[in-house]
């Protein structure tokens, strides 16, 4: 058996422990200790989990791709468990984790900049691309993708609650067809083939650009994650116009 210390950054605290605790237990681990606290970057959840070494990779994969997780670090707990007992780390959004302990790590978003931009995006919605392009250039390079992902998740969740929440609970194919597709079409030209969405001429993914469809991935995760809850929705970038192909393709699964 191994003990794993997991540190997670999320955009909000509500329900974080319940959602991710369930995921830990479902992965065959037991939750030994946990702590949730808030700082200027968002809500942090630190968990000490215990389970078999064979299940570690699966747990890390599930946590890393969970729609509540903005940033994630997992490391083996050594004798004494000193890390957990320590005070909340005084990390910055751009370098939240000590490099020596990182097994799976995603750069943290510039939460402050995203938070300040979101109300303006809500006001101008669906004409949001000037805001996103401005943010893309303003944030540090290592925080760019995570910031676009966060902005996408928050926007997707907001649009879902505003325009699509009322109605029956649908399966994934119907959710894509009835909710994701019409919502995406208010922003860009999109075609659907089964569980794949093809975005034509995405303004965020111009050839040689840098966003990598992260905004739309987050948008779909936020929107469909809320619709499909408690199931987790995953969005995978198959290819992006910025890398020279004709369009952007995203695949949705749960």
């Amino acid at each position, binding site marked *: 058996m191994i003990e794993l210390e997991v540190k997670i950054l999320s955009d909000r605290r509500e329900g974080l422990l319940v959602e991710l605790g369930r995921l830990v237990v479902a992965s065959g681990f037991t939750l030994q200790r946990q702590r949730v606290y808030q700082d200027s970057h968002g809500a942090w959840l630190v968990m000490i989990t215990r389970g078999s070494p064979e299940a570690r990779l699966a747990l890390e994969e599930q946590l890393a791709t969970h729609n509540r997780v903005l940033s994630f670090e997992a490391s083996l707990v050594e004798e004494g468990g000193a890390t957990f007992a320590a005070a909340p780390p005084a990390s910055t959004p751009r370098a939240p984790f000590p490099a020596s302990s990182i097994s799976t790590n995603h750069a943290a978003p510039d939460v402050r900049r995203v938070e300040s931009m*979101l*109300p303006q*995006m*809500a006001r101008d919605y669906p004409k949001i691309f000037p805001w996103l392009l401005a943010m893309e250039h303003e944030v540090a390079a290592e925080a760019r993708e995570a910031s676009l992902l966060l902005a996408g998740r*928050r*926007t997707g969740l*907001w649009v879902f*609650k*505003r*325009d*699509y*929440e*009322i*109605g*029956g*609970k*649908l*399966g994934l194919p*119907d959710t894509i067809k*009835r*909710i994701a597709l*019409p919502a995406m079409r208010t922003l860009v030209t999109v075609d659907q083939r089964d569980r794949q969405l093809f975005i034509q001429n995405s303004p965020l993914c111009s050839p040689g650009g840098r966003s990598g469809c992260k905004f739309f991935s987050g948008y779909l995760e936020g929107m469909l994650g809320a619709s499909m809850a408690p199931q987790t929705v995953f969005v995978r970038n198959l290819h992006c116009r910025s890398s020279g192909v004709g369009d952007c393709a995203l695949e949705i699964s749960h």
Partner: protein
Amino acid sequence: MLAHQSYNMLLVALSYVISVLGSFTALQLAVVIPLARTARERTAAVFAAGAAMGVGAIWAMHFIAMLACDMGMPVSYDPMLTALSAIIAFGACSLGLAIASSGAFSWPKLAAAGICMGLGVTGMHYLGMAAVMMGAYTSYDMNLVATSLIIAIVASIVALWLAFNLRGPLQMIGSALVMGIAVCGMHYTGMAAFKVDENGGQMPAGFSGGLRGENLGTSIFAVTLVLLVAVLLIHYKRQQRRATISI
């Protein structure tokens, strides 16, 4: 339709308008049932939607349509059976909407909900017709009775599918228009199945104590007023909620 039945077409059109208004109110209340946070909220939403559908869309429509129909002789309605017909419609519609709004969408669930609603519409109609008191023998063409039941069930299933499976204007308006077809289609097919034979002018016992058109008119006006107020309140609450959702 038998030769001695004639219709006031303005009231026939009004009966469809009332059934659509009631269906719209009911389905707008029903589609938020999945968002209820407590069992109490859910129960209240189910009963409110069931009342709007059963009493508004079905019962009120039925009696406007009965006022539209001139059978060539005086007619009154048994008060107990008339009240019971409203309760049947309310109960069956509440059950149907509770089934349709529970958990994730599935075809068996939709079919069960549609059958409940269809039986509610049909049960209300034929109980309402059993309440009719007039100086004649009455009977039914059973083929048309079966047809009216099928119309009610199929159109209810379509309306519930539109309401719970779609989003946007088609969900809001389309479902109510189709549910109106379910209610009216069933009613007027049921009326075509209704046969009247002379009995020599013998009035049934209790005829004079029955409800007349003017009594029903007041009740229908009250129901319509409640439906209109409910629609306005729903619209206002939705707009208010939409404005408070922060990004």
